[in-house]
């Protein structure tokens, strides 16, 4: 009964209803839209850093992360292989790497780099390098003294494809190992820092140059889909740890490997919800004001109802129910508008490359695809609904307090 009355009431004056609805719709839309932009940015950031050689999960020697040198490498490859193939679901890819600091030099330049020995075919499937070649060719397993470098590296070292590059690094015997390579390909990456830092050679050549035998520095594992909450990764990492059952190896998920990223995600999520609140307050003033005005316009009506014997509580209930309907319609329409605008943008993404260097500093991707999270939609909806009902109590109490004589004397 209250519901039917309230529903009919809000359509008695469509103009007023539409005015209030508009405020709610714009508020909800802005929350959904801003949330989608932020989440899109976050996902893209995580995806980028995972594909920049992090992977979903990595296995290292216990000491390697503190001290990434060639001594802290892992042997017992057979055992690792077995643990990987038994504990991971089929379809999950992984690749082995040698990864050490090295010094690169040519006739003109010398600089520090990270030397990465990769299994070319497997690596292409799990990290950015598979799709990053911009000129020349990619590595093959049989390549002997071939190397691929980043675009920015090429520029910094003032060199080109087919030129020579000398690499120097410490080998397992603590001697300086050095070897000449020929540049066969150039890759590009999201950030110049990555293009300058990493250079790739085949795993076998790296192991040979550093006298590592069979051992490797890390295994990088890529789960089929990114889970930004990290639950899937944690589960898989646990199973792996159990399967390996040897505490000289350490299995870590991207959340453990990139603690800054995790902290950033938490901070920005927190900040988003604060902003939701701020937007609500801005919108709340409008809702209170308009519904208060509506109540005063209807003073005569409330007085009459009271004269007919309606109790104050019932009037409050009526007004709050009206607001409830308005809010629900507004939230739904705001969501639809939000979904539509996000869908329109995410087809092509937002191009941020004009601010490329800045984007690199903050680790923000060059292209942004907004993304709607159920969690944000729920929070936005709940914030608007709960706080909206709360602030509607003020006009509702006002309406309940009109006395019949006072109200009906008006006009």
């Amino acid at each position: 009964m209250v519901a039917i009355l309230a529903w009919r009431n809000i359509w008695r004056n469509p103009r007023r209803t539409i005015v209030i609805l508009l405020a709610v719709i714009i508020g909800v839309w802005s929350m959904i839209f801003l949330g989608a932009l932020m989440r899109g940015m976050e996902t893209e950031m995580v995806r980028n850093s995972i594909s920049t050689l992090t992977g979903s999960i990595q296995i290292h020697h216990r000491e390697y992360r503190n001290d990434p040198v060639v001594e802290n490498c892992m042997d017992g490859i057979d055992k690792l292989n077995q643990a990987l193939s038994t504990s991971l679901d089929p379809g999950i890819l992984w690749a082995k790497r040698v990864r050490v600091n090295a010094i690169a030099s040519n006739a003109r330049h010398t600089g520090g780099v990270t030397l990465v020995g990769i299994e070319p075919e497997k690596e292409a499937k799990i990290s950015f390098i598979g799709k990053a070649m911009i000129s020349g060719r990619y590595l093959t397993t049989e390549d002997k003294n071939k190397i691929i470098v980043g675009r920015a590296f090429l520029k910094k070292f003032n060199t080109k494809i087919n030129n020579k590059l000398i690499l120097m690094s410490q080998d397992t015997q603590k001697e300086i190992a050095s070897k000449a390579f020929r540049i066969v390909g150039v890759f590009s990456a999201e950030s110049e820092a990555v293009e300058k830092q990493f250079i790739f050679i085949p795993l076998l050549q790296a192991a040979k140059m550093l006298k590592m035998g069979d051992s490797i520095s890390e295994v990088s594992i890529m789960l089929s889909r990114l889970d930004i909450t990290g639950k899937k990764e944690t589960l898989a990492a646990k199973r792996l740890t159990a399967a390996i059952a040897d505490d000289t190896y350490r299995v870590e998920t991207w959340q453990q490997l990139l603690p800054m990223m995790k902290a950033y995600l938490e901070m920005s999520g927190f900040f988003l919800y604060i902003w939701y609140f701020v937007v609500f307050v801005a919108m709340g003033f409008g809702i209170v004001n308009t519904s208060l005005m509506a109540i005063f316009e209807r003073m005569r009506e409330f007085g009459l109802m009271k004269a007919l014997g309606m109790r104050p509580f019932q009037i409050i209930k009526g007004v709050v129910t009206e607001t409830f309907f308005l809010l629900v319609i507004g939230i739904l329409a705001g969501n639809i508008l939000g979904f539509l605008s996000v869908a329109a943008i995410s087809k092509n993404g937002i191009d941020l490359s004009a601010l490329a260097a800045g984007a690199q500093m903050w680790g923000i991707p060059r292209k942004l695809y907004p993304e709607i999270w159920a969690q944000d939609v729920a929070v936005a909806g709940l914030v608007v609904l709960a706080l909206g009902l709360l602030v509607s109590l003020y006009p509702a109490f006002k309406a309940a307090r009109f006395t019949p004589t006072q109200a009906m004397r008006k006009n």
Partner: protein
Amino acid sequence: MSIELKMAWRNIWRNPRRTLLTISAIAFASMILVFMLSFQLGCYETMINTSVKISTGHLQIQAKGYLKDKKMRLVIKDPEQVAKFLDTVEGIDTYTFRANGFSLVSSDTRTYGVVVTGIDPLKEAHVSSIKSLVRKGSYLKEDDETAALIGELLSHNLKVDINDELTILGQGKDGSIAAAVLTIKGIFTSGIDEFDRNVIMMGLKGFQEIFSMGKSVHEAVITADSLGDVSMVKQEIQNNFLKIKGGEYLAVPDWMEIMPGLLQGIQMDLVSGIIMYIILVIVVAFSIFNTFLMAIFERTREFGVMMAIGTTPSRITKLVMFESICMTIVGILLGIIIGSLVTLYFQNKGIYIAGTEDILKQYGIPDRLYPRLSLISATAGPLVVFVITFVSSVFPALKIRKLKPVEAMNNI
């Protein structure tokens, strides 16, 4: 005071509740904007100052092309002359000279490729914060030639501590081999991993000897009196370059050119902030638009009466516009005052956000954030609010022109 203005002011107080709510909405939006903008600008200033203090200085004088290529042979040949010249330029706080060379740095067990920087211990202490960052051991003395300062992360990587020896091996300016043994005298921690992992410093004199630089250096690092003076000082130096012998081969990059990533990072963050503010202002504009619209519907009868006694529609429109401008001005003034007070409070106390220290450290921001109130941050946001509310009050006011006195008066 014109009659319209007087009427407008009285009109808005005829319904104090509505007016107060509208003013509060405007004041709230202005307050948030003042605070947020001050907060952002405060963080940027801290970031710039920290980066400038830790390494680059506000301005540098370098040989042309050095900024891009960092080639050993691109030097300032006669630093003494440059020093004499810099002493005459106004707006410069202090300056110092540095030289850089890429070297293989080895400890007993480890080897890394690092850039070694030669610094003038006395002058450097005034220009950069390095002296205060030494957490273990001590800072360099004036005549220390083979002593070195090393970043904490690098010392971990090299597995060395105070008083251990490092062998450096690089290429001198003339192409000869530069080799020396340095003793670690101090270990510094800036909190910026990039810096702590990649920097070794030694006395400039020792550096010049080892790398066969003679008297030459690579950079003159200059601190201006304040961030705002940088462009003026830069202009001044550029205009007078030719007074120095060999000045035509020199360039004066400022911090924005030396660290383009920092500037663009700030712009980027500012842009994303502005998107958020625009969204907020749109929401506020809508709630104000609603209020104005409803108010006009409610007062149809009143306007009808006014028209019937001869007030022209344009005059009523003017009156209504005055009303909204009055409310907006009161609102933004309140917003500016409250926002400034809140900002000033936090400007003294700082804001601590738990769990963000590690992130902030990397951008050179200490764990407390300090907003900074300025003329721009206090007025830019409220000004936008003013314009937007003004625009959103035009449409309802224009509705008045369509009113017909008789119909309007029949409206309850």
